[in-house]
C-alpha cells in the first residue's frame, strides 16, 4: 500500500508535467491550476504514504521499482528508500512547492509561456522528490542532475534576454563540476566497498570501518558535489546569477529546496563524514568563510533578489557549519525553517517586483508599507525570523546551530566570528527592509500592480508557518528524525532565555534602521567601505582569469598546433614528396619515341647482361 502511494508521490508530478504542457498548449490558463493540483496531490500522497512513519518513525521501507543496470555483477536498482528523513524532505518539497505553485498562478498570469513554466516546475518537483527518495547514489544522481537541468531551464526561462540564458548556463556548468565530484564519489564507493545503496554502505562501514583512502576520496567527492549544488565556496558563484529566473523559481529552487539537497546528502551519508574529522574541519572552515563572505556581499548589493540570494548562500553556510559539527538534525531543522522564511521573503520580493513592474533595485523602492500591507507584514516577520529573534522559527534553528558549533569547538578563540555572521544577517535584512518599505518613496506609487489574493495567500501561510514552527517543530522533529539521524536533542529555550538572546539582534536591527539613511547620506564613505563586497570580491573575474582564459588558450593552442599543423605537415609532406618524385620522373617522358626506344633497348641489354652474368 505504502509503495503504491510512494509511486504516486513520484509519478504525479512527472505525469503532471507532461499533461500541463500538452493541455496547456491549447489553453494556457489551465496549466497553472493543473500543475498546482498535481503538486498538492503529490503532497497528499506523501502524507498518506507517511502515515505509518508518523506513528512510528523507526520504520523504513525500500521499494524496488525495477532493475536499472548492473556493474560488475552489482545490480543497480531503481529503488526508493522511505524513512523519516525522506518523508521530512518530501513534505518540505511538496508542501512549500504547492504554495509556490499556487503563488505562480498569480505571478505568471500574464506570461504567454505559462505551460512551459509550470511543466518545468512540476518536472523539478519530480526530480527533487527522486533525489530525496533515492535508495542508492545512482538514483540520487538522476535527481541530482535532473534538478540541475530544471534549474537551468527555469533560470533561462525568459531566454530572449541573453544574460538570463547565460546565467542558466553558468548555473548548469557549476553544478556539473559538482556532479563530476559526485560521480567520482560513486566510483570510489563502487571500487572500495562495491556498494552504492545508502543502507548497505552504512552497514559496510559499520563492519569494516572507514580507514581506506578511497573512502576519504569518496567523502571529498561528495563534498565537491555538495558545494556545487548548495552554493558553497568555491562553486557558489552561480546562485546569485540564478536570480535571473522568475521569482517563484528563486523561492522554490534557489532557496527552499534544491540548494538544500547538499545538506540532505550529507545527512544521508553522515556516517561517512563522521569518519573523517579532518574533512569535517575543512568543511567547517569553508562553510564559515562562505557564510562571512556572502553576508558581507549581501550588505553591499542593491538588487533585492541578489541580497536574498547572498543571504541564502550565507544561511546555507550556517547549515554546513552545523553539518560539519556533526549536528545533522539541527542542520535539517534549519533547512525546514529556512524553507519557510526564505520562501516567504522571496515571494514577498516577488510581490514587490511584480507591483513595481519588474523594478529590482532597492534604491528605487521605498514607502511600500502602505501600498502592500500584507507583503509588508510577511516581510517583517520573515526578516525578524532570519535575524533569529524570539519566538520566531529562525531563532530556534539558528540558536541551536550556534550552540552546536560552539560545542564542536572548531572555532576556538574565533567564536566571535559567529556573532559577526549573525549580526551581518540582521544588517543586510534590515537594510533591505528599510529601503523597500520605510524609506522615502523614490518612484511613482500610484500605478502599482496590486498582488492578487493568489499571491498573498501563500505568503501569509508561509508567515504563519514561520511563526509557529519554532514552537512545534523542535521536539517533534527531534523524535521524528532520530532513527535516520544520530543524536538530535533540542530543548526549547524558556521565554526569558529567548528574550535575552534576542537583545543583541534587536539592537543591531534598530541601529541599522537608524544608520542606513545616514550612511546613504555619506555615499562616498559607503563606497570606500564596501568596495570589495560591492564587487563581490571579484570572484567572478578571478575565475574568469584563472579558469576560462587558460582553457580557452589551451584550446586555441591545440587548434593551431595539432589540428592545423598536423594537417599541414602530414598532408603537405605527402603531397610534396609525390610532386617532387613525379616531376623528376617525368623528365624521362619527353615525348620522343627515340628516347623511349633507346631506353627499352638499354633495358633489354642490361637484362641480358645480368642473365648471362648470373
Amino acid at each position: 500500500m505504502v509503495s503504491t502511494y510512494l509511486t504516486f508521490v513520484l509519478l504525479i508530478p512527472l505525469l503532471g508535467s507532461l499533461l500541463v504542457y500538452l493541455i496547456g498548449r491549447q489553453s494556457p490558463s489551465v496549466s497553472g491550476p493543473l500543475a498546482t493540483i498535481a503538486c498538492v496531490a503529490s503532497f497528499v500522497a506523501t502524507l498518506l504514504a507517511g502515515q505509518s512513519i508518523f506513528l512510528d518513525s523507526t520504520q523504513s521501507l525500500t521499494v524496488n521499482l525495477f532493475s536499472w543496470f548492473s556493474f560488475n555483477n552489482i545490480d543497480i536498482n531503481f529503488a526508493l528508500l522511505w524513512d523519516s528523513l525522506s518523508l521530512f524532505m518530501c513534505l518540505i518539497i511538496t508542501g512549500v512547492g504547492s504554495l509556490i505553485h499556487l503563488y505562480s498562478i498569480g505571478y505568471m498570469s500574464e506570461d504567454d509561456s505559462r505551460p512551459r513554466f509550470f511543466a518545468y516546475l512540476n518536472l523539478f518537483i519530480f526530480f527533487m522528490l527522486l533525489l530525496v527518495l533515492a535508495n542508492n547514489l545512482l538514483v540520487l544522481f538522476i535527481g541530482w542532475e535532473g534538478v540541475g537541468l530544471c534549474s537551468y531551464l527555469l533560470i533561462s526561462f525568459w531566454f530572449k534576454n541573453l544574460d538570463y540564458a547565460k546565467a542558466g548556463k553558468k548555473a548548469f556548468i557549476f553544478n556539473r563540476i559538482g556532479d563530476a565530484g559526485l560521480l567520482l564519489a560513486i566510483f570510489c564507493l563502487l571500487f572500495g566497498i562495491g556498494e552504492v545503496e545508502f543502507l548497505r554502505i552504512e552497514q559496510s562501514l559499520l563492519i569494516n570501518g572507514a580507514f581506506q583512502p578511497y573512502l576519504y576520496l569518496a567523502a571529498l567527492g561528495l563534498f565537491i558535489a555538495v558545494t556545487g549544488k548548495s552554493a558553497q565556496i568555491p562553486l557558489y558563484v552561480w546562485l546569485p546569477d540564478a536570480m535571473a529566473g522568475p521569482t517563484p523559481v528563486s523561492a522554490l529552487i534557489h532557496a527552499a529546496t534544491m540548494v538544500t539537497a547538499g545538506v540532505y546528502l550529507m545527512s544521508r551519508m553522515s556516517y561517512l563524514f563522521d569518519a573523517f574529522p579532518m574533512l569535517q574541519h575543512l568543511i567547517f572552515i569553508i562553510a564559515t568563510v562562505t557564510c562571512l563572505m556572502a553576508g558581507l556581499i549581501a550588505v553591499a548589493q542593491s538588487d533585492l533578489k541578489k541580497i536574498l540570494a547572498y543571504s541564502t548562500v550565507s544561511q546555507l553556510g550556517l547549515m554546513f557549519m552545523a553539518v560539519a559539527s556533526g549536528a545533522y538534525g539541527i542542520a535539517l531543522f534549519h533547512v525546514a525553517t529556512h524553507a519557510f522564511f526564505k520562501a516567504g521573503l522571496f515571494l514577498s520580493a516577488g510581490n514587490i517586483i511584480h507591483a513595481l513592474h519588474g523594478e529590482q533595485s532597492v534604491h528605487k523602492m521605498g514607502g511600500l508599507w502602505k501600498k502592500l500591507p500584507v507583503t509588508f507584514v510577511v516581510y517583517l516577520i520573515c526578516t525578524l525570523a532570519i535575524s533569529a529573534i524570539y519566538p520566531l522559527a529562525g531563532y530556534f534553528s539558528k540558536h541551536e546551530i550556534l550552540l552546536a558549533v560552539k560545542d564542536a569547538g572548531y572555532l576556538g578563540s574565533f567564536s566571535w566570528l559567529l556573532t559577526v555572521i549573525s549580526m551581518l544577517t540582521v544588517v543586510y535584512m534590515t537594510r533591505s527592509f528599510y529601503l523597500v518599505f520605510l524609506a522615502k518613496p523614490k518612484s511613482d506609487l500610484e500605478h502599482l500592480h496590486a498582488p492578487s489574493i493568489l499571491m498573498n495567500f501563500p505568503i501569509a501561510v508561509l508567515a504563519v508557518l514561520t511563526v509557529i514552527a519554532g514552537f512545534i517543530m523542535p521536539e517533534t522533529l527531534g523524535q521524528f528524525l532520530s532513527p535516520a539521524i544520530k543524536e538530535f536533542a533540542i530543548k526549547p529555550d524558556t521565554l526569558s532565555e529567548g528574550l535575552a538572546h534576542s537583545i543583541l539582534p534587536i539592537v543591531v536591527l534598530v541601529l541599522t534602521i537608524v544608520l542606513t539613511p545616514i550612511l546613504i547620506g555619506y555615499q562616498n564613505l559607503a563606497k570606500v567601505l564596501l568596495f570589495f563586497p560591492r564587487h563581490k570580491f571579484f570572484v567572478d573575474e578571478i575565475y574568469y582569469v584563472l579558469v576560462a582564459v587558460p582553457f580557452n588558450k589551451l584550446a586555441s593552442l591545440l587548434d593551431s598546433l595539432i589540428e592545423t599543423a598536423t594537417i599541414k605537415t602530414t598532408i603537405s609532406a605527402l603531397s610534396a614528396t609525390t610532386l617532387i618524385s613525379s616531376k623528376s620522373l617525368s623528365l624521362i617522358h619527353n615525348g620522343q619515341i627515340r628516347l623511349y626506344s633507346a631506353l627499352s633497348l638499354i633495358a633489354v641489354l642490361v637484362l641480358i647482361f645480368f642473365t648471362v652474368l648470373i
Partner: protein
Amino acid sequence: MNFNLSIVLQVLLLTPILGAICLFLKAGKFCELTPAWMYNFVTWAVVAVSFFVPSALLLGETGLVHFSWFPSMGINFSFYADGLSYLAILFTAFVFLIYGLLNREQSAGFYACLLLIETSLIGLLISVNLLVFYFFYELMLFPIFYLMTTYGSSEAKKAAYQFLLYTLAGSLCLLLAIIYAGYSYFQAEGVFSLELVDLLNHTFTLNEQRILFLGFFVAFAVKSPIFPFHTWLPATYSNAPKGLAIIFAGLLFQAGIYGLFRFNLGLFPQAFAEFAPTLAVLATIGIVYGALLAWRSKSIRGLMAYASISHVGFSILGLATLNPSGVSGGLLQIFSHILIAVGLFTIAYAMERRQSGELITDFRGLASKAPVFSFFVICFSLASISLPLTISFVGEFQVLAASFAKFPIITCFALLGVILGAVYMLGFCQQILFGEPMTEDFDDLDPNERISLASLLVLILILGVLPRFATDLLGVIAKNQLSASPSEILEIIGNPKDKKLSEGLVLANLQVIPHE
C-alpha cells in the same frame, strides 16, 4: 517458423546489394518508381529482415554462411552474427531508414551509393573471414568518395581526398597485417587460413601479436578515430553534402570500434593487455581534446564532429579497461553515439536546409521561432552530455567506473571531459536558441524530421531507463571475449602455446567449419 540464420544473413546482405544494382540500372523507370521510393523500400526491407536475426539466433542455429571462394588461401565467404553484430546491424538499418525520411529528392545514383555503403557496413559486421571483412571495410570508401566529390563543394572534394588517403593508408596496414596473420597461422599449423574461427583457436606468439595488433590498430584508429589519427574527421563531417554527415558521423566510427573489439581484443588479447594503458591515455586525450576543440569550434558541424571524437573516446576507454562491465559500457556507447550523432547531425541538416550559413553565430534566438526544433536541440544536447536516464549515461557510467578501478588518474581527466561537454553543448544551445531572433523566417520542423528525431529520442530514453536488455547482452559478449582475466593473460604470456585463451570466445563455440 524456423528461420535459418544463414538464410537470414544472406538475405540481409543481398537486399541492399540488389537494391543498389536496381538503382544503378535505373530499374525504377520501367515500373515508374522514384529512386527515393525504391531506396525507402529497400531500407525498410533491411530493417524487417534484420528483425529475423535474433529469432534465428535464439533458435540456437549455428548456421554459419560459408561459400568457398579461394580455399587454398583460406579465403571464403563466411558470415555469422552474434548479439553485437545484430544490434549494430539493427541500428545501421535504422539510420539508413531515417536518412530516407529526411532526404527524398536525390538521383538514383545517389541512393545506389547509399545502399552500397549500407551493404558494406552490414557485410563487415557479419563477416568472419578477415579478407572478406577487409573487402567490405574498403568497399564503403568508394561510394563515400563518389558522393563527396560528385555532390559536394570544392571543400568537400578536398575533404574526400583527405578521407580517402587517410583511410587507405590505414587499410594498407590492415591488409598487410591480415596477410601476416594468415602467414603465421600457416607457419604454425601448416594450412593457410584467414577464417576468424581458426585464428581465434590459434594462439599467436607475443611478438606476432604485437606486430599484428599495431597493424589492425592503425586501421581502426583512423576509422574510429582515436586521437592522433582523427584529423580527417572534422573536414569530412563538416563538408559532407546533402546531410550525408548523418550517415558518416552516425555509422562510420562503429566499424573502427567494432574491429578493435572483434579482432584486436579477440585475436591478440595479450598485446591488447599490454597496450591497454596507452590506449586509455589516447582515449582520454581524445575525450578532453575533442571537448576543448568543440568548445572552440565556430561551425555547427565542426562542433558536432569534435564532440564525436570526444564521445568515441569513451568507447575506446571502455575497451581499454578490459573489464567486462567497462567493455560492455564501451560497446553500449557505440549505440548511444549512433543515436546522438544522428540526432545532432539531423538537426544541423535541418538548420542548413532552412537558412544558409554554417557558423554557429549565423543563428540566434531560434527558440521563439521554432519551439519543436528547440525542444529537440535541447534534448539531444542533454543526451550528448549524458544526462542520467539517457542511454549515454549508462554507457559512460560503466566505462568511467570500470576505468576508475584501473586507471584512477586518467579517469579524473576523463571526468574533465564530462564537465567540458556541458560547456560546449550548452554554449551551442545558448548561441542558436536564445536571445532575440535574428531572422524572420525559420520554419519549424516538418513531419518527417519530427518523426525521425522523435523516434531517435524515444530510443535514447527507453534504452536509458531500461537498458537492462542491451547491457546484459553486451555484458555476456564482453565477458566471452575477455574470458581470460588479465592475470591469466599475464601467465599465458610466458607460455604462448596455451590454448586456454580461445576457450569460450564467441566464435569458438561454432564447432564445424567445412574446409574444402
